[in-house]
């Protein structure tokens, strides 16, 4: 990984992404980086402690509306907590969970996909059977069952989200490995006595990087959606910690009188999913074009 040629090529790739992007995608890249920065800097950007209650300033609308209080830019919730601060911290947690979940899914799918592709035979059949099962049981149900058995908890949520996407990784990796298996460079590695592990890490993995990045991006957007859905239903992290989905879910009860409780996190979820989806699609199309050129 720390090979100098690889570093240069990855730097070039980043520049290439910016170069290939149209104006809309460039806007999405900038917005994405801004959201990332906002989530990383949340503790410093947020004007208040996200869980600090203030019973005298409950359900106040955003600044500029009647009864709004200076300082609480986006208003306060039913316990007088600052919505801007809560949203920033929620964004941080949402992104953190999605990152952890997508990484688990990628590692799991990569391992099983490599095994299925390299070993073939019984191993392949078993893994194909597990994939079939995963497809048959809708993911929301797996999540509901997991919550019923283990209870709602941050780690349970991450684990559940991690297993939600592995099967896409496994299928694509398996297909790519089977395609590569017959090629001369793999045969040469076999002939020179390389172990399966060495072939997988040194010869196959570098060639899998491009589809992996694309799938990671697409899976990440799916996980953001899933996480916010589960949190919305009250099955995610425990209060008072908030994610964007749980803020919408809890704000529902105050919708007629204090609509900003749901509007602020809803719009941020919308922005987040749009940006992530746009970047994922862009990376996918870009990789496709390259595949076609080859």
């Amino acid at each position, binding site marked *: 990984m720390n090979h100098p040629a690889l570093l240069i090529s990855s730097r070039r790739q980043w520049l290439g992404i910016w170069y290939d992007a149209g104006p809309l995608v460039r806007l999405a890249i900038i917005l994405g980086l801004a959201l990332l920065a906002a989530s990383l800097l949340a503790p410093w950007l947020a004007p208040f402690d996200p869980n600090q209650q203030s019973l005298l300033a409950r359900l106040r609308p955003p600044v500029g509306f009647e009864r709004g209080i200076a300082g609480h830019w986006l208003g306060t919730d039913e316990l007088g907590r600052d919505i801007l601060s809560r949203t920033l911290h929620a964004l941080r947690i949402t992104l953190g969970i999605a990152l952890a979940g997508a990484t688990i899914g990628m590692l799991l799918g990569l391992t099983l996909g490599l095994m299925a592709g390299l070993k073939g035979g019984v191993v392949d059949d078993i893994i194909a*059977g597990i994939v*079939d*099962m995963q*497809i*048959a*049981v*809708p*993911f*929301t*149900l*797996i999540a*509901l*069952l997991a*919550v*019923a*058995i*283990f*209870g709602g908890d941050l780690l349970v949520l991450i684990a559940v989200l991690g297993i939600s996407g592995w099967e896409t990784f496994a299928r694509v990796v398996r*297909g790519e490995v089977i395609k590569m298996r017959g090629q001369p460079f793999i045969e040469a590695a076999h002939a020179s006595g390389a172990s399966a592990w060495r072939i997988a890490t040194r010869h196959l993995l570098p060639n899998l990087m491009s589809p992996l990045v694309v799938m990671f991006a697409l899976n990440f*957007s799916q996980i953001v*959606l899933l996480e*916010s*859905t589960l949190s*919305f*239903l*009250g*099955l995610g992290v425990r209060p008072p910690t908030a994610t964007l*989905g749980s803020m*919408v*879910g809890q704000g*529902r009860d105050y*919708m*007629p009188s204090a*609509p900003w409780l*749901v*509007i602020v996190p*809803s719009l941020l*979820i*919308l922005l987040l*999913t*749009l940006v*992530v*989806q*746009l970047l994922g*699609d862009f990376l996918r199309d870009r990789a496709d074009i390259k595949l076609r050129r080859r």
Partner: protein
Amino acid sequence: MLTFLIKSLCKMALTLFLIITVVFFATRLSGDAIDFIAGEGLDAQSRSELITYYGLQEDIVTQYWRYLHSIAQGEFGISLIERRPVTTMFRERVVPTLQLIGGAILLTLVVAIPAGIYAAVRRQHASAKGMMTAAFIGYATPNFVLATLLLLVFSYWLQILPSAGNSTWLHYLMPVTALSLTYIASLLRYTRNATLDVLGQDFLRTARAKGVSEREVIFYHVLRNTLITVLSVTGLMVTGLVSSGAVVIESIFSWRGIGDLLVNAAIRRDYPVLQFGVLAVAAAVITLNTLIDIAYALIDPRVRLGARAA
């Protein structure tokens, strides 16, 4: 064809059996089963009674065998909260869910297929481009966000649509729309791509060359060929609708269907209800997928011979 049928059915049975097994062991291996079956704060007397009732003193293989046995007899357990057989609870909830999903499928097909073909045929036109942008935004919008915003606007601000229940046709508008949006967006994109593929084919040039009118080209040649591709995607969509979509939407609009039942069961940790829910939905999904495979085999002989493209 018969071999293919038998193969599909065997695979279906095997997958279902594996799911039953995995669900059983997952719940047993996660700790002392009695703790989530009976909840906390149980005295020793009733605890041991419950252990005997559920047969938990026996070894796991015997329990598994008994579990399979009771499933074969159609007994899937009793809800911990409502103390009723879970099968009865599901039976009461099936119809509203089917109505909701049926409405969503109908709306999706009626909107997405014509719009997708239009977007492909007039792909340079501004209206088609706007349509694709709308489809992209629709695809990225989580359905609970859309549902919440719809509720806010139409039930609370404008006060023209009811927010909960399913007694009149007005009650269907928001849930069906919120449920369909993602699927409309994705089917629209699929239909457009499928149509673009068809539009580039030689037989269309032949048709136009021999003087077939443009209208006939679109409605006869393009539509039929597009539909073959679209059929497969529709099958996958139904799967998504049955499961993920309906769960969230029912919960938001207090729709007394299976999704609402499952979410409440998860919140109250009513574990037998969920166990049956997973099995029932998995069975439905597997049956549906098998039917789609069979339909495919009927249409395309290559599939029967095992040469289906990945």
